[in-house]
């Protein structure tokens, strides 16, 4: 199927989104709908002594107020460990925690009622530093203590490696608590149906898991819960876990009325999931020719209050802590530690941006000390297919570290970097640096990773593709359409998609982990094969053509043993069969051996990108502008070049935000950056010019050769920006975001 042709079309969702006609779940209204308000904790850490709802219930327009006792099923949620209460009963662990839920006839009344819920707290000391939280006498957030997960992966002997090293680089790095800030905040409507079932309309990244989490909370049969989660107004990982769904589901089932909530930006920034800040201590040893000998890494992941995906994120970070470089001796240790600093969960990159900022920085510093250039030292160490990774598994699938490195070296920006660095202002300095990254794709070993797709032939000869994977802005639905159309030999306009709903689409796993395009390529191809087989079988039965008849898609129809048939003709021919549905299922390949002590590791397939950045630093103020970026990316097989470039644009902007602007500041458990005037994301004025270099090293385990690229495009840009600041000014950035004041203080250490 490598010769498949992908017809290029505009984004299938472009017109509706540009014109504002697309209905997001947060746009929906239902007759008799009530409005929810989440009563949030006043304190980041406290015991709940009493909750009095009488004043709130007495307010005209209030329909119900729920407390922990009203949770009908299991009062907890969490993808890995359901330790986050839907409504806290005895304890709160961050200021976004819910202590009661209000439903009222208007949003205003609901908010007023929330202020009338009287909660008696016994305030506990705030735990706000993950390293302090590990000490034996630290106050405990959970009964089991503050350690969410501890992982240690070792290979070889790092001490031996350091003894043999000519240069050893050792530093501590810190990374920000980045917020996802999707345009559509956490929102949705829960609708109780006449048959006792519940419909949940809420944009999220995995309807089929939401269904089970809601079943657990409500104590209901999952098949009595219908989840509609597509389209999503931006996710980036922040809607992988449940957000508001549990609360509005309880309210809807209690009141028998549809219940809606749409969080304000302020409430979203205070209560929502964030990227885990990491403190990384990394010691890396090199020989004088640049060969890496050892890497000793300790990561402290600020977990926030509840588990969610903190474990897999820590482990993916540790998997990547030495990148895919040839390091014979490694010691990767990590601690995911509970604190009262909000809640952290999945976020594009999933731990990899944090550790590669540290590693690529140590790499450039070693190169500088050894008099090597940044390309040479990396080329010396990149791994190839068939070699053993730094955590000890053999790389069986394609490895493109060398390809993206070669391509970024040949980029216009890197080739002409000395010219780009010229400036005639005495106070300005420009620098160029590069970095590269692998990003493990899929869910990892030990986690069933699978996906299905249905292709329905509709009566008019067009097709409906049914697949669980949602569109939250990535452009995947355009890609799915092109893949299905390419296999079927029809124009993509003949394929429509039904996605992200437990009724009418099929479970294909979460839209996370750079897995959507890859999973869909295999599930759709499997459904297409089923299509050919079933059509051939049906024709054989009808026309007695023999059992070995073969059908092939061609020119808007199929060649069959009884001649060419258009899809319209086939639809008519088999119109009695209902539905005309073909099914495809796919299971991800995984490693045959796990990494001991590290659940989920290793990953089997990787994405690869290298990026170079040109920055300009104002030495008078520390302001840093990212002027130009070159990206070399291996797509495996490009389905839609425009969407690939758009993913690069978005990834670079999000990486730039991580590197220069974004951080949720929390002090003593209170969020200080509650809106967009203090939580700073780049605007269109801040994003750079781009140079795109697209490589196609086909991924052999995809029926169509594709790799996921959604995450890796934001990773190398982060160290590249930090290292370009070094190239410009000579200072090493160890803490991100690299705000003007931070850069200024590095330039003037005595200040």
């Amino acid at each position, binding site marked *: 199927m490598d010769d498949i042709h992908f017809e290029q079309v505009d984004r299938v969702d472009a017109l509706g989104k540009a014109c504002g006609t697309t209905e997001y779940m947060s746009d929906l209204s239902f007759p008799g709908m009530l409005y929810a308000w989440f009563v949030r904790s006043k304190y980041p850490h406290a015991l709940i002594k009493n909750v009095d709802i009488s004043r709130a219930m007495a307010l005209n327009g209030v329909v119900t107020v729920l407390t922990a006792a009203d949770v009908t099923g299991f009062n907890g949620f969490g993808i890995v460990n359901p330790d986050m209460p839907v409504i806290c009963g005895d304890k709160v662990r961050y200021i976004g925690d819910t202590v009661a839920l209000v439903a009222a006839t208007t949003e205003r009344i609901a908010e007023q009622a929330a202020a009338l819920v009287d909660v008696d707290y016994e305030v506990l000391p705030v735990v706000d530093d993950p390293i302090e939280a590990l000490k034996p006498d630290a106050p405990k957030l959970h009964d089991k203590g503050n350690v969410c997960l501890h992982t240690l992966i070792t290979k070889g002997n790092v001490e031996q490696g350091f003894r043999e090293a000519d240069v050893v680089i050792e530093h501590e790095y810190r990374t920000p608590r980045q917020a996802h800030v999707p345009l559509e905040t956490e929102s949705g409507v829960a609708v109780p149906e006449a048959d006792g079932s519940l419909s949940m309309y809420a944009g999220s990244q995995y309807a089929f898991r939401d269904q089970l989490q809601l079943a657990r909370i409500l104590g209901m049969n999952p098949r009595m819960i219908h989840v509609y989660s597509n389209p999503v107004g931006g996710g980036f990982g922040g809607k992988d876990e449940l957000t508001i769904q549990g609360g509005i589901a309880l309210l809807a089932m209690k009141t028998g009325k549809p219940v809606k909530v749409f969080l304000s930006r302020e409430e979203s920034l205070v209560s929502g999931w964030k990227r885990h800040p990491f403190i990384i201590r990394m010691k890396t040893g090199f020989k004088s020719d640049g060969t890496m000998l050892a890497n000793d890494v300790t990561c402290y992941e600020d977990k926030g209050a509840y588990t969610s995906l903190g474990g897999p994120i820590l482990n993916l970070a540790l998997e990547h802590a030495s990148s895919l470089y040839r390091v014979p001796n490694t010691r990767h240790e990590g601690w995911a530690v509970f604190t009262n600093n909000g809640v952290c969960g999945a976020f594009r990159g999933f731990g990899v941006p944090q550790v590669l900022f540290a590693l690529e920085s140590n790499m450039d510093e070693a190169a500088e000390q050894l008099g090597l250039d940044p390309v040479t030292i990396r080329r010396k160490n990149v791994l190839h297919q068939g070699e053993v990774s730094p955590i000890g598994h053999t790389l069986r699938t394609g490895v493109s570290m060398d390809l993206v490195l070669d391509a970024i070296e040949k980029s216009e920006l890197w080739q002409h970097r000395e010219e780009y660095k010229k400036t005639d202002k005495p106070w300005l300095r420009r620098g160029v640096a590069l970095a590269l990254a692998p990003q493990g794709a899929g869910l990892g070993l030990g986690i069933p990773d699978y996906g299905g797709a249905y292709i329905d032939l509709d009566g008019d000869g067009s097709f409906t593709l049914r697949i669980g994977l949602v569109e939250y802005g990535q452009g995947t639905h355009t890609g799915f359409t092109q893949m299905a159309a390419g296999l079927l030999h029809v124009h993509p306009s003949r394929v429509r998609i039904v996605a992200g709903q437990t009724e009418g689409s099929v479970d294909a796993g979460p839209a996370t982990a750079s897995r959507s395009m890859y999973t869909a390529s295999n599930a759709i191809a499997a459904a297409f094969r089923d299509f050919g087989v079933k059509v051939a079988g049906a024709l054989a039965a009808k026309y007695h053509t023999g059992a070995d008849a073969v059908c092939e898609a061609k020119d808007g129809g199929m060649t069959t043993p009884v001649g060419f048939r258009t899809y319209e003709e086939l639809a008519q021919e088999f119109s009695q069969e209902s539905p005309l549905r073909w099914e495809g299922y796919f299971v991800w390949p995984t490693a045959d051996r796990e990494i001991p002590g590290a659940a989920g590791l290793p990953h089997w397939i990787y994405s690869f990108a290298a990026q170079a950045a040109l920055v300009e630093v104002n030495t008078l103020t520390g302001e840093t502008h990212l002027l130009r970026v070159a990206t070399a990316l291996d797509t495996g097989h490009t389905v839609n070049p425009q969407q690939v470039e758009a993913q690069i644009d978005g990834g670079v902007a999000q990486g730039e935000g991580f590197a220069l602007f974004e951080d949720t500041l929390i002090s003593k458990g209170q969020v200080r950056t509650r809106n967009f*005037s203090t939580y700073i994301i780049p605007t269109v004025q801040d994003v750079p010019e781009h140079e795109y270099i697209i490589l196609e090293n086909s991924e052999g385990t995809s029926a169509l050769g594709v790799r996921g690229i959604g995450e890796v495009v934001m990773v190398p840009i982060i160290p590249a920006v930090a290292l370009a600041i070094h190239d410009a000014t000579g200072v090493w950035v160890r803490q991100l975001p690299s705000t003007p004041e931070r850069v200024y203080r590095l330039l003037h250490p005595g200040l």
Partner: protein
Amino acid sequence: MIKEFEYHAAQDLKEALELAEQFGPRKRFLSGGTDVTVRLKEGLVTEDVIVDLSHVAELRFVREESGVVHVGAGATHADLGASPIVRQHGHALALAASRVGSSQIRNVGTVGGNVANASPAGDTIPALIVLDAVVSIANRKGTRDVPIIDFFTGPGRSVLASEELVTELYFPVTGPGELTGFGKLGSRQAMTISTANMAFYFRIGDNRRIVEARIAFGSVAPTVVRAHRTERMFCQLPPLLSWDAIRGAAQMAWKEVAPIDDLRATAVYRKEAVVGLLAEAAYEALASCWHER
């Protein structure tokens, strides 16, 4: 939650002043609304009457008469940034207005609102100060004029009485031999509250020296401040383009500002940054008339 309030949309200046008198301290004016609506959402508006000035067309103008530029309080930042009069005769003000918020904010936010708000971070204020602007203030009985440097009494506070309204700002035209400029430090390129801002005015004498200088800094004191000692340093510069000399003169600003630590930056960094803002903008402006030896 936005609280409930009484709302009046004034159709002309006369009605606005009547409403001002009627409601006195109970009312808050809203012009472009770019600040008031944010404060309403944050629960920071104590008044319970909003008087909307955005329909008062007679306050929206820019004109030049007899060597004086008149800017109506209702002129938007976009108006100022695009006005040939302001660009030519009050360049610093055009630059400052162009750095406010974003296009959307500049299309509705007004210079009158920026001044009356009296924020120490207001971007047009240092520019108006170095242009020696005068604030025209009206109430139902008449008008009075206040030099802008005397207008502000503290953060968010001014000499405006509750029944008064800023109607206009006016300043003498700048011409050949007069340089003005503006600089701003924020957390990104647009949509950013100034961490520090700065405007300057230099009059170049026959000997090409600076014979008169006015320098103002914002976000580094309870109100926007003039930096008189720094101005004298610039007047002592030899007329040669020297980065070190210009930076040295700007260094005096360190002693003339009294910033605070807040979420955006620390005080000591703000002091350093205003020196940089001034040095950078002054160097660029003086490069047009001075040359390196």
